[in-house]
């Protein structure tokens, strides 16, 4: 797969389309603008990252896509259909893994299926088969507290995947991991993505992570957020971690760093 493909997808068939989305919150009696005319699109099967300083409004943007918040202005269109509800097309993985401590790993990953009213046993069987892909084989009956940080993130990602939605929103999924685990998880995420071919919209603080994973990157300004930079990552896939010290990579990194620090 090449970046070309996904850019074509983008042009003709965005599964997430945000146009001129603006949002402000009332904080201490005053209007605090958070998002200021943000326009973003994610194509089918595409991997798009969103970088921005802390508190600039990235999670708020996701909440708007999910339907948890309503934008003050602007348009949100999912899967090309204005009337589609977010719950039918979007699956969301928050920054905290939010595994339910009272459920085993197996019962955690089928949560979305259970909410959808699917047969629990069937969902469990399906999930069991995927356990090894997610590196969780043998831990079906463990409680989340018994897992390492990386395993918890994998379980959370598995739950997100098993919701069977076309769009995955991942909010800093690796934010809490250490550098080494994080690197491993990134490579693994690319494999899973490759296998399932869903559109992924990915929030991160980490410039290297964004470049390494994505087809395209949006860089946001500090609050109120606007798109400061929009960049295609034309690095060949599959990517290996060593590429982070390659000159191409470094050039992109410098560019993003500038966009982030100049604003």
């Amino acid at each position: 797969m090449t970046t070309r493909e996904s850019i074509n997808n983008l042009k003709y068939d965005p599964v997430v389309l945000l146009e001129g989305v603006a949002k402000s919150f009332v904080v201490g009696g005053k209007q605090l603008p958070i998002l200021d005319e943000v326009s973003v699109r994610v194509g089918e099967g595409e991997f798009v990252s969103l970088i921005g300083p802390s508190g600039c409004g990235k999670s708020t943007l996701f909440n708007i896509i999910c339907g948890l918040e309503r934008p003050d202005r602007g348009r949100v269109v999912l899967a090309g259909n204005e009337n589609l509800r977010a719950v039918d097309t979007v699956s969301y993985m928050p920054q905290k893994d939010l595994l339910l401590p009272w459920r085993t790993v197996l019962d955690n990953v089928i949560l979305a299926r259970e909410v959808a009213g699917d047969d629990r046993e069937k969902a469990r069987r399906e999930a069991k088969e995927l356990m090894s892909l997610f590196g969780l084989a043998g831990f079906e009956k463990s409680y989340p507290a018994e897992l390492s940080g990386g395993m918890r993130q994998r379980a959370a990602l598995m739950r997100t995947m098993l919701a069977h939605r076309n769009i995955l929103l991942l909010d800093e999924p690796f934010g809490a991991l250490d550098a080494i685990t994080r690197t491993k998880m990134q490579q693994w995420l690319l494999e899973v993505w490759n296998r399932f071919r869903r559109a992924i919209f990915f929030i991160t603080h980490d410039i290297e992570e964004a470049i390494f994973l994505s087809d395209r990157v949006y860089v946001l300004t500090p609050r109120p957020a606007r798109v400061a930079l929009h960049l295609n990552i034309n690095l060949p896939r599959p990517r290996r971690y060593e590429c982070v010290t390659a000159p191409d990579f470094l050039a992109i990194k410098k560019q993003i760093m500038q966009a982030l620090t100049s604003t």
Partner: protein
Amino acid sequence: MIFRLINRIPVTALGIMAVLLVLWEAGVHITGMPVWFLPPPSRVFTALVEMLPQLLDHSRYTLLAALTGLTAAVLVALVLAVVMAMSPRIRQGVYPLLVFSQTIPIITIAPLLIIWFGFGIMPKVVVVTLVCFFPVAVSMAEGMQAADADMVKLLQVMGASRWQTIKLILIPAALPSFFAGLKIAGTYAMMGAVIGEWLGASSGLGVFMTRASHAYQADSVFAAIMIISLISLLLFALIELISRLTIPWYYNERRK
């Protein structure tokens, strides 16, 4: 499991208790207090042994009322907590009424309870329920309130109904807090049943105690109090056990 429970028997507490008993015994003898003023523990133990068959017989009634009332209290509390979880509006309406209900001194409305419910087990059960539902309802409600808001949002994005959210997130999240409340309620249950009997009954520890007290037998009264405390502590331990079996994940997490 059993090993761990045995390990948890409060040796220090028993030690302190023993010291207090010895001081009490010595105190009574040294000051020469009359029995009706304060019976020494030795007398209480003698009375306990002598009266044991009677005490156990009376205990049956009291325990039945306590357990029935506690069960009713748990049901009422769960229903209230779930209803309050349905919407903040309802919560705001119901919560102050719960607090209000606890400000009414039960013994003062007790005669009315008997007028309404007669002399059977019913008014005792009502008293126990009134005393016990509050700690359970409040801790359950607080537990649900304190559930992770992000988990709730996650379920919302999955398209869950309010009831699904309550069932899948709020109730399990509130269980540790629920059991904490239940333990308090369990402590109060026997006491509530005794108060209930005190208002009018034909058997039960409350009846035993009033008879003993009107017959000026302070040692028998204390023996009955000991039985009540003992049963209450057993109830407490039982709830602890149930809680460990019901929410193992919570105890495992805490051990970390």
